[in-house]
């Protein structure tokens, strides 16, 4: 009954303290795991960057422009299945939402569960395809080829297209970027296409299909690196915050403990004093 008095009992504070300490251990270990995954992802990204940049060169040099047409827009949103990584998924989701609001005839291919959760409530009609089991293991070209094949097989038609992903800048920053995607018709009508010799529709088709897989692969690699570095930062902040909470709680615990002891002493002494004066 002595311990029931006061703002919080010793028991409650110690339970809270134990749980915050556990959380700090978990976030610290998540940070270590993310740091290791980030190092690997950044290394793979360095090898993949020339490939990804090379894959975009043709479209720049041939001055390919979006097709004139009303077939709508295709957005491929690249994210992953796992959270606790800062603003990585929400930034993509936000841009998709504004894009759909601006042009309702937009189809979205979502790579990763998290963005699907963001878009499902309001824009379920615009979701054309969802790819799951993304993010657990580093992406390989075969994964991107699989997604590209599914998109091609589904026969989605579009006049304007883009891939939305988070480009990696530094350990603490990433930028949500879009890479343009061009339909076969757009390539066939490019202003500088006649400069390119001996092209037939077969070559253009194979070229655009392969380059879709290549661009997707590159965006997945960039996004994975951004995600791991963002998770590392987020978990580091969480551990620091948990550390602050632990300090505050420990102070409160000690003060409460001392208050309890003082109260007991007061009661004993006043009881003894009362007996003395009685005598």
């Amino acid at each position, binding site marked *: 009954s002595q311990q029931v008095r006061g703002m919080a009992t010793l028991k409650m504070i110690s339970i809270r303290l134990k749980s915050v300490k556990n959380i700090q251990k978990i976030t610290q270990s998540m940070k270590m795991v993310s740091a290791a995954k980030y190092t690997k992802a950044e290394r793979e990204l360095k090898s993949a960057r020339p*490939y990804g940049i090379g894959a975009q060169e043709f479209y720049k040099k041939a001055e390919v422009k979006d097709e004139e047409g009303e077939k709508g827009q295709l957005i491929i949103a690249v994210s992953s299945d796992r959270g606790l990584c800062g603003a990585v998924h929400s930034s993509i989701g936000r841009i998709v939402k504004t894009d759909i609001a601006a042009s309702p005839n937009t189809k979205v291919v979502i790579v990763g569960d998290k963005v699907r959760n963001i878009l499902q409530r309001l824009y379920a009609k615009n979701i054309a395809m969802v790819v799951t089991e993304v993010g657990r293991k580093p992406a390989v070209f075969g994964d991107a080829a699989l997604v590209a094949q599914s998109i091609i097989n589904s026969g989605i038609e579009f006049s304007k297209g883009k891939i939305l992903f988070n480009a990696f800048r530094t350990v603490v920053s990433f930028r949500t970027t879009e890479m343009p995607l061009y339909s076969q018709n757009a390539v066939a009508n490019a202003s500088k296409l006649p400069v390119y010799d001996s092209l037939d529709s077969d*070559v253009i088709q194979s070229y655009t299909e*392969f380059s879709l897989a290549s661009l997707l692969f590159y965006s997945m690699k960039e996004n994975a690196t951004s995600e791991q570095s963002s998770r590392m930062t987020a978990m580091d902040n969480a551990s620091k915050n948990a550390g602050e909470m632990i300090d505050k709680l420990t102070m409160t615990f000690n003060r409460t403990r001392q208050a309890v002891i003082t109260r007991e002493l007061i009661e004993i002494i006043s009881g003894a004093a009362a007996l003395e004066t009685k005598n």
Partner: protein
Amino acid sequence: MERMALTRSALRLFSGRFTQACQVRGYADAPSMSLTFAAPSQVLYNNISVKQIDVPSFSGSFGILPAHVPTLAVLKPGVVTVFENDGSTKKFFVSSGTVTINEDSTVQLLAEEAVPVDTLDISAAKELLAQSQSQLASASSEVAKAEAEISIEVSEALVKACE
């Protein structure tokens, strides 16, 4: 005034000579081309200036020299030979991919997989060929047949590259 007229006619003389000299020069003296040869997992050349590149494509194997006409091509399984500026030659086996030659003589060779030819093991390649042939024999659906045929094409090219 006379000096200007003199210099003008002198310039005209010289420029005439220069244009004649330019026409005599061949492609070998043209600015060299910048090659980016990469696979998803590794970079082999990143904007490196080279003399010539031989590529195997579905529209025939061809060599790319500086000032080659711009074109796009799809790669066939086979050997890519890069002739570097210092005279050395490097051979790589590619499985598939695309090659882009732009107007400004930049070349992007994007291969799905590319390995140096001297890392290939001919016995493993022959084994793969035998495997794919038996796959074709036992293939049931159109898709399985096509996959087996692709596998045969790649393993035949691998064996050829090793020899």
